[in-house]
């Protein structure tokens, strides 16, 4: 990349961060997020539409498909800002579906999905903690995020050596819903193939790539969240007094904070380098290694940082009224989405066995 290109890139990422402020104002309160918790469907459909209008759902699609043609770096920056504000609207699964529909030739509900008028979820997952897509036609599909608001499901189905894609209207096949710790839902779908329409013969190449991207974007969302929780904790350490002193002067706590800072820094470096690698065209094992490294780090660090933030707050950290707990709950839900730390560490070692000195 030339210096001019690099500048353009940085500018584009800065712009996307600024536009995120429309939805998640930096330092804004979390009242909207709180009010949506455990409500049906757990997010604001109006705001989801606004995200569509801003071009976020199709951020990664080429312009000829109705997208914004932006890179993984921009998508990660956007997710990070949304993570900071705990924005519950299901952008990550929607963007995944947009990529799958684009791979299917732009058929089916792609235009209305890009406009944010409907929520389309890809029902790929047949068991917990996996990135594999067996495509068993009648198998239940699990862990569909915000499924209570879904209008369409996309079903990958193995047909011979290919992974065909079907569309299933949610009205004809209603998922069962379970509530999650962050106030959202996860759905389970027992697919009724009689109601399904075929959209494409083979999405076998596109789907794993899109899942990898979703894993990386999830890592970025977690990064934004942990960084905000850590920032709140630093503010608290600077202000809370006990024993006649600001608690941030206690060396035991200073060292804890320094350790957390390093976790946040490693997570950011890992994600940004992975995004750069993908934008530079990494595919296959190179892509998998970059994504797995970042997601393994983000999953582990987000859980550790958020739980230590509770501890550093003392009693007030254990209340629902105080915001830091919301970040803990979000990490609990998202850390394992699109693969846990263990899964990604393992995958990293299979695709990148040697150390490059």
């Amino acid at each position, binding site marked *: 990349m030339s210096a001019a290109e690099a500048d353009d890139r940085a500018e584009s990422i800065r712009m996307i961060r600024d536009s995120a402020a429309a939805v998640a104002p930096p330092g804004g309160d979390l009242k909207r997020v709180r009010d949506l918790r455990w409500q049906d469907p757990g997010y604001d459909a109006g705001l989801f539409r606004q995200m569509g209008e801003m071009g976020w759902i199709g951020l990664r699609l080429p312009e000829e498909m109705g997208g914004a043609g932006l890179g993984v770096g921009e998508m990660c920056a956007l997710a990070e800002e949304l993570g900071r504000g705990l924005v519950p609207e299901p952008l990550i699964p929607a963007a995944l579906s947009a990529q799958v529909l684009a791979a299917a030739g732009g058929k089916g509900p792609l235009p209305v999905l890009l406009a944010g008028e409907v929520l389309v979820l890809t029902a790929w997952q047949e068991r917990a903690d996996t990135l594999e897509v067996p495509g068993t036609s009648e198998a239940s599909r699990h862990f569909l995020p915000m499924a209570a608001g879904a209008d369409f499901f996309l079903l990958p189905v193995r047909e011979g050596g290919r992974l065909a894609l079907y569309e299933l209207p949610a009205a004809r096949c209603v998922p069962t819903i379970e509530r999650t*710790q962050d106030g959202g839902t996860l759905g389970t779908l027992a697919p009724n193939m009689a109601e399904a329409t075929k959209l494409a013969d083979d999405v076998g190449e596109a789907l794993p790539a899109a899942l990898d991207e979703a894993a990386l974007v999830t890592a970025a969302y977690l990064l934004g969240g942990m960084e905000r929780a850590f920032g709140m904790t630093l503010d608290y350490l600077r202000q809370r007094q006990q024993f*006649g002193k600001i608690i941030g002067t206690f060396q035991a706590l200073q060292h804890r904070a320094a350790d957390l800072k390093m976790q946040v820094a490693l997570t950011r470096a890992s994600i940004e380098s992975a995004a750069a690698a993908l934008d530079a065209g990494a595919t296959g094992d190179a892509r998998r290694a970059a994504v797995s490294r970042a997601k393994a780090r983000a999953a582990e660090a987000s859980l550790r940082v958020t739980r230590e933030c509770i501890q550093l707050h*003392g009693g007030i950290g*254990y209340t629902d009224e105080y915001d830091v707990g919301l970040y803990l709950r979000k990490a*609990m839900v998202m850390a*394992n989405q699109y693969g846990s730390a263990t899964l990604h560490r393992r995958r990293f070692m299979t695709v990148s066995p040697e150390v490059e000195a």
Partner: protein
Amino acid sequence: MDAIRIPPPAELDSLDDEQFRQVVRAFLHANYPEHLRNPPKRLHWVENKEWYFRLAETGWLCPGWPKEHGGLGLSPAKQIILTEEYERHGVARTNDHGVVMLGPLVINYGTEEQKRRFLPKILTGEHIWCQGYSEPGAGSDLAALRTEAVLDGDHYVVNGQKTWTTLAMDANWIFLLVRTDRNAKKQEGISFLLVDMKTPGITVRPIINLEMHDEFCETFFDNVRVPKENLVGQLNKGWDMAKALLGFERIFLGSPRQSGYALSRLKILAERMGVWEDAEFQDRYARLRLEFEDLKALYGTFVDRLKRGQSLGPDVSMLKIIQTELFQKITDCMLEIAGENAGLMEPMEGNRDLNIGGLYIQARPATIYGGSNEIQRNILSKNVLELPG
């Protein structure tokens, strides 16, 4: 089980340890309400009073109190056996601040009149107590408390705010640490006061905790008039009394049972997730399991000291740190292996007590209350290791 005869309460302390353990098991088997085993949350009075009253009727309510006050008069060692068996059986905590804290305090420091007035009502469940120590500005630094009691004729007038008052909404009495001398050194101006929660001027506001449960409260005092005779012990000596009570508490916070329970859940989850046989997981589990076994051994050495009639020193802080952090590590591991199930609100389908997220959240406050683990480490480094500073 049924073959074991349960002796009358007065005879329990004369059993040998093993007989006593068997009797406790038989007692729980015969008396403990099945539906209250291993509750996912701390129970409110409406839910646990059935058990409280059962304990009251059978005379088992107050294991540590002397017999002449209606207790079982059990030695510390037997109390530990009792606690172990309760935990093993999954017995829920009751609203036990009267039994565990206020009762012993009144027995040690109260007047005869206070003993007559308060102890029987704990035994009947008429008085349900809560603990008003912490304040917004006084947590780890409890001695900085500012809720003030000023003498006005025959009454103390109390003004201020307590917080994190566990189950204050269920209680009809509260025991307070209050400031009675503003000019003294901070530990020396604190007194111990008993307050009827029906007194005008008291407001209780429940706080929802991270378990999404209304378990603790803020408690406000606005010109609350408390009869002078409700002061326990000497004026301005409340701090020493409250501290004396804490030593014995810490060994309970160090009981390995909580971690034992969590380990058994972790195994069930690992089997369900198909990772139990996994070599990497086995190593991780073994680490946790060995820490549990070693904690049990360490805990045993403290119990032995109690059995020999010795008192426990500040090194008991080790138990609290190791146990609460082990409990957290086990629940962290559960979360990590559970995949997307980690984020669910409700227990996993098919295992009512496999509540991964719930247990993860429940494990958090144990390192905060009862003296945070940072404070316990300060105690270890200063009072046990005698490091300078």
